[in-house]
């Protein structure tokens, strides 16, 4: 079990998926669950008169509608205002302790994530707990080339495959393979077998565990805090073509100030070609590892994590990059962040 420590911000679950992928069906089913009783749901629809919020409105959970345009088109005012409104509501009414944001089928979740992480007040009050992307096993193959569809999968922490009972086996396999290619770090599950309550319980594990399992063996903590002549960094390639996935393993605790500078510079300069950076790192002076999670130009605030019964994990970052030389990223990391560098 992994859980964020000392983070009192209101968790936000972003539910995204292409047009007709089954988001509303999934959430309607979830409304009956006990986990939903203390949940505020914001529904984003392209139409001025919403349909989904009527489908979703019930007596137990609060549902609000972000109508009249896609979230991604209304970033400057709409979403910010709605989220500030949610926080104002949370201050006066203590009857919800999580928020679900259902995005319209054409929304780019990265734009919404950026709205939250770039607004100092929202970022201080809201924590993006999980990005859930629904992918339709029957029709997804027709929209695989759509940029919105691809971005929704790239941003996912977990992918739920819908309509698995209606899909031909070869179609299901093709959709599964496509999702795995676009976002190899996100677990894939049939939506019909997934309860919302389970997603809430497992949010931290879903975000962190899979990358931990995939990173190979090694020491979770460095053996000593002493300087090393060079950072022991190992890179290996996982995919033959398309976006390149590689893992950078670090065996020494790192200086946060240098790591933050390097990540900030890399995302600022090359964020358009960085599909994902995820991993655990041990920082100097920290009593537990931090979860690093970046999508494109956006870095989530590194979460301080506590792991139970899992002391053997390595310190590592997994990169999914499109057209960036992995070898040079590793060299740059070693030169800028690596252990053994007393000062820059």
């Amino acid at each position, binding site marked *: 079990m992994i859980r964020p*420590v*000392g983070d009192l911000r209101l968790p936000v679950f972003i539910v995204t998926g292409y047009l007709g992928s089954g988001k509303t069906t999934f959430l309607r089913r979830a409304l009956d669950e006990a986990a939903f009783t203390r949940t505020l749901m914001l529904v984003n629809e392209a139409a001025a008169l919403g349909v989904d919020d009527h489908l979703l409105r019930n007596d137990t959970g609060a549902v609000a509608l972000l109508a009249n345009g896609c979230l991604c088109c209304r970033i400057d005012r709409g979403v910010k205002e709605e989220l500030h409104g949610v926080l104002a509501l949370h201050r006066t009414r203590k009857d919800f302790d999580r928020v679900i944001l259902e995005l319209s089928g054409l929304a780019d979740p990265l734009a919404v994530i950026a709205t939250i*992480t770039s607004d*100092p007040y929202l*970022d*201080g009050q809201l924590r993006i707990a999980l990005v859930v992307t629904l992918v339709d096993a029957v029709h997804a193959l027709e929209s695989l080339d759509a940029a919105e569809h691809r971005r929704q999968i790239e941003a996912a922490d977990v992918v739920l495959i819908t309509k698995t009972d209606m899909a031909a086996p070869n179609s299901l396999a093709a959709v599964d393979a496509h999702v795995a290619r676009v976002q190899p770090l996100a677990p894939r599950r049939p939506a019909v077998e997934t309860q919302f309550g389970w997603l809430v319980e497992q949010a931290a594990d879903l975000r962190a565990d899979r990358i931990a399992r995939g990173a190979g063996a090694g020491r979770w903590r460095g053996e000593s805090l002493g300087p090393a002549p060079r950072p022991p960094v190992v890179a290996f390639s996982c995919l033959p073509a398309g976006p390149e996935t590689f893992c950078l393993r670090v065996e020494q605790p790192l*200086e*946060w*100030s*240098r790591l*933050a*500078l*390097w*990540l*900030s*510079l*890399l995302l*600022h*300069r*090359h964020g358009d070609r960085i599909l994902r950076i995820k991993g655990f790192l041990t*920082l100097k*002076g*920290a*009593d*537990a590892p*931090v979860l690093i999670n970046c999508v494109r130009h956006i*870095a*989530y*605030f*590194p*979460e*301080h994590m506590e792991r139970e019964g899992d002391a053997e994990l390595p310190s590592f970052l997994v990169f999914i990059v499109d057209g*960036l*030389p992995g070898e*040079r*990223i590793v*060299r*740059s990391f070693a*030169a*800028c962040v*690596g252990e*053994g*560098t*007393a*000062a*820059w």
Partner: protein
Amino acid sequence: MGHWSSPGRHPAGRGRDPLPAVARMAQARALAMICAHAGIAVRDWMLTSWILEDRAGGALIVETLPEVWDGVARLSGRPVDPLDDAFIAHMEAGTAGTR
């Protein structure tokens, strides 16, 4: 709260954060070395802003790291590229010189 990369938001955990001024000075030293590759001097101002200066006397005052990167590009005429061979060599040489 500030930008995620600001030293005041060290994710060390409860009670383990370094003093903001100490973390800021560490970041200032590291930042100065990066910006030196572009010929830009950078220094902290009151723990809240960064002052960027070029050799011709041009200066900018910014707050966050993304603004620093934009400012360096504006003053020097080219963005700092962390994957550029010359930049990596500059950082490697600087690192070796401080050992």
